[in-house]
């Protein structure tokens, strides 16, 4: 077990593209850290550099205090779980799990013992003599995990290990991975593009974009205090709503009305307003005491999705889309492929289940002004944080 330190680590390719721009990251011993971001953000490259499967162009990588830039993967004593599981098809489950130990030239009795133990933990004892082809997806995934844990390495690296499972199994395995990591206490670096996985699994989450780290922090901090538009939009489901806003002496002009909030003098004139769906409420259900701290507006309801515990209510906002121009938003839209992200002319709100709003009718909506975020569209910076 060991800590992992990335010191200004850069990855560039001969053709000049830079996949990772001098990132600094300190991963504590025993920590479960998640690298998350849209595809092409450099998270897998970072993982491969830690693994030793890709060269580090500049910078330094230290595992347990020792510089390992030039060490071959086999000399770094770290295990990896692959998205495709990478099980050796010609070997049984037993041989797959015992393979790293065999390469380390452990005596056979010890290999059998360790494989047996790992199989018990992962409930694979009955399948030890099967070939990977005869296993279900979940079982294969567990064999891949087993192969990583048998050798008790300094660290685990996991490259989207759950993304080949169906949705239900993925949730189950998520809990199992989390429990296993706590039990073993091994430093773990986990790569995913799924923000839900990132939020539920990690001690800390690293949000990456285009080879840069955007923000590092525990899941709640990322959610509550995103440093920029990108993180704000990437973390959370449904995503944060973004609306154009213009500063005027008494507050902010927005498509849903003029918000009476003070804006700092040094802020630019045009801003992006960010509001999470749960910070809206059906105005009729808001307690009197809270009412003055919010802002109320009326809009016709497009669509109501009842989730049982609460309701997702969708609105269309006039003039919401065209004024929003920001690199961060463009990246988010590209990542979501337009599907996951709220249509920027639309507004997603999460209201109490008791709300009586109906499709087609106007609804009176209350917005919690304490929870709004303001972003500088030029660089995406969150202005409400300072």
């Amino acid at each position: 077990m060991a800590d992992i330190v990335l010191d200004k680590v850069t990855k560039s390719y001969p053709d000049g593209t830079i996949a990772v721009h001098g990132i600094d990251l300190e991963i504590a011993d025993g920590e479960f850290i998640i690298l998350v971001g849209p595809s092409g953000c450099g998270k897998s490259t970072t993982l491969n550099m830690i693994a030793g499967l890709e060269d580090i162009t500049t910078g330094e990588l230290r595992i347990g205090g020792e510089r390992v830039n030039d060490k071959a993967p086999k000399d770094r004593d770290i295990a990896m779980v692959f998205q495709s599981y990478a099980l050796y098809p010609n070997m049984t489950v037993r041989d797959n799990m015992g393979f790293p130990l065999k390469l380390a030239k452990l005596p056979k009795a010890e290999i059998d013992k360790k494989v047996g133990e790992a199989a018990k933990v992962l409930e694979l004892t009955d399948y030890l003599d099967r070939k990977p082809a005869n296993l279900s997806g979940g079982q294969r995934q567990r064999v891949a995990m087993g192969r990583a844990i048998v050798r008790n390495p300094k660290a685990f690296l996991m490259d989207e290990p759950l993304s080949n499972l169906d949705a239900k199994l993925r949730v189950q395995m998520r809990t199992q991975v989390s429990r296993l990591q706590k039990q073993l206490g091994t430093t773990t670096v986990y790569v995913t593009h799924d923000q839900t996985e990132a939020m539920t699994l990690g001690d800390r989450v690293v949000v990456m974009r285009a080879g840069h780290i955007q923000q590092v922090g525990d899941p709640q901090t990322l959610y509550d205090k995103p440093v920029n538009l990108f993180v704000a939009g990437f973390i959370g489901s449904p995503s944060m709503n973004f609306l154009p806003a213009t500063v005027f002496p008494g507050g902010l002009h927005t498509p849903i009305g003029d918000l009476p909030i003070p804006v700092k003098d040094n802020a630019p004139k045009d801003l992006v307003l960010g509001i999470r769906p749960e910070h809206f409420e059906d105005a009729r259900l808001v307690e009197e005491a809270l009412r003055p701290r919010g802002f109320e507006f009326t809009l016709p309801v497009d669509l109501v999705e009842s989730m049982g515990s609460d309701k997702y209510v969708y609105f269309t906002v006039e003039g919401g889309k065209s004024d929003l121009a920001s690199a961060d938003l463009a990246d988010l839209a590209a990542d979501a492929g337009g599907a996951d992200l709220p249509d920027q002319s639309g507004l997603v709100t999460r209201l109490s289940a008791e709300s009586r709003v109906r499709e087609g009718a106007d609804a009176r909506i209350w917005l919690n002004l304490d929870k709004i975020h303001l972003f500088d569209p030029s660089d995406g910076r969150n202005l409400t944080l300072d």
Partner: protein
Amino acid sequence: MTAVVEKPRKAARSKVALSEGKRQERRLGWLLCAPAAIVMVAVTAYPILYSFWLSLQRYDLKFPGDREFVWFDNYITVLGNGYWWSAFGVTMLITVISVVFELVLGMGLALIMHRTLIGRGLVRTSALIPYGIVTVVAAFSWRYAWTPGTGYLANLVTPDGAPLTERASALAIIIVAEIWKTTPFMALLLMAGLALVPEDLLKAASMDGASAWQRFVRVMLPVMKPAILVALLFRTLDALRVFDNIYVLTNGANDTRSVSIIAYDNLMKGLNLGIGSTMSVLIFLTVAIIAFIFVKLFGTAAPGAGDEGKR
């Protein structure tokens, strides 16, 4: 002071230097390829250059004393010679006709092998027989089949003639033998292309009202185009080398010599290294030009052009 100097130098060095793993990978790559590369180059590049050198000399093994450097005299001799042009024409004729037939028959065979409902294994197995069989063996089979008296085909088709002794019929038989031998190979290459045609695409086309023929022409052929071009390139260049069939069937009699046969005759029967080498170089150039035209015309369709850059 020293620290200030030290830092940039270190950074610069690690930028250029590859990690040990990377260097090891390179070294291993070269090491693994070296034997194959050396053998291939040593046995082809050196002899073809040597051949060019020989082609500039008067060099007849029957008169070794007459060896002399004559520049391009041999080329003038060969290119001014009717036999060469006859062989050249025969080679082109055989190539064009056999490749065209092979393409059509091969496409049919590919469709049968790919889509047949029954006995797919049997069809594929029997189609492989012509591919695998020794060309000389097949050629003998054809020769005896067309030998008057002995052959079932000769007695059946040409009861009162000797087809192998007349130029036109002999060439036809040579072409038939070529087609029989290599159509399966063509079909296999085309079948690889057929496998790339998505089944859903064909279903969609028939839902859109396309007939079987329209589906073939409008949907399958465009998807198969790269495979067809690869098959054509390989077979054309292979057909230009035609030797075995002619050697056994007519041995070049009655003006049925191909360029390969005439080059071989000059060397082994005429023992004329100078002229033989000149023909070798000319054949090499012909093939190079045709290959070049193919690759230029069809660009990326050339095998290996697309996917080899990456792993």
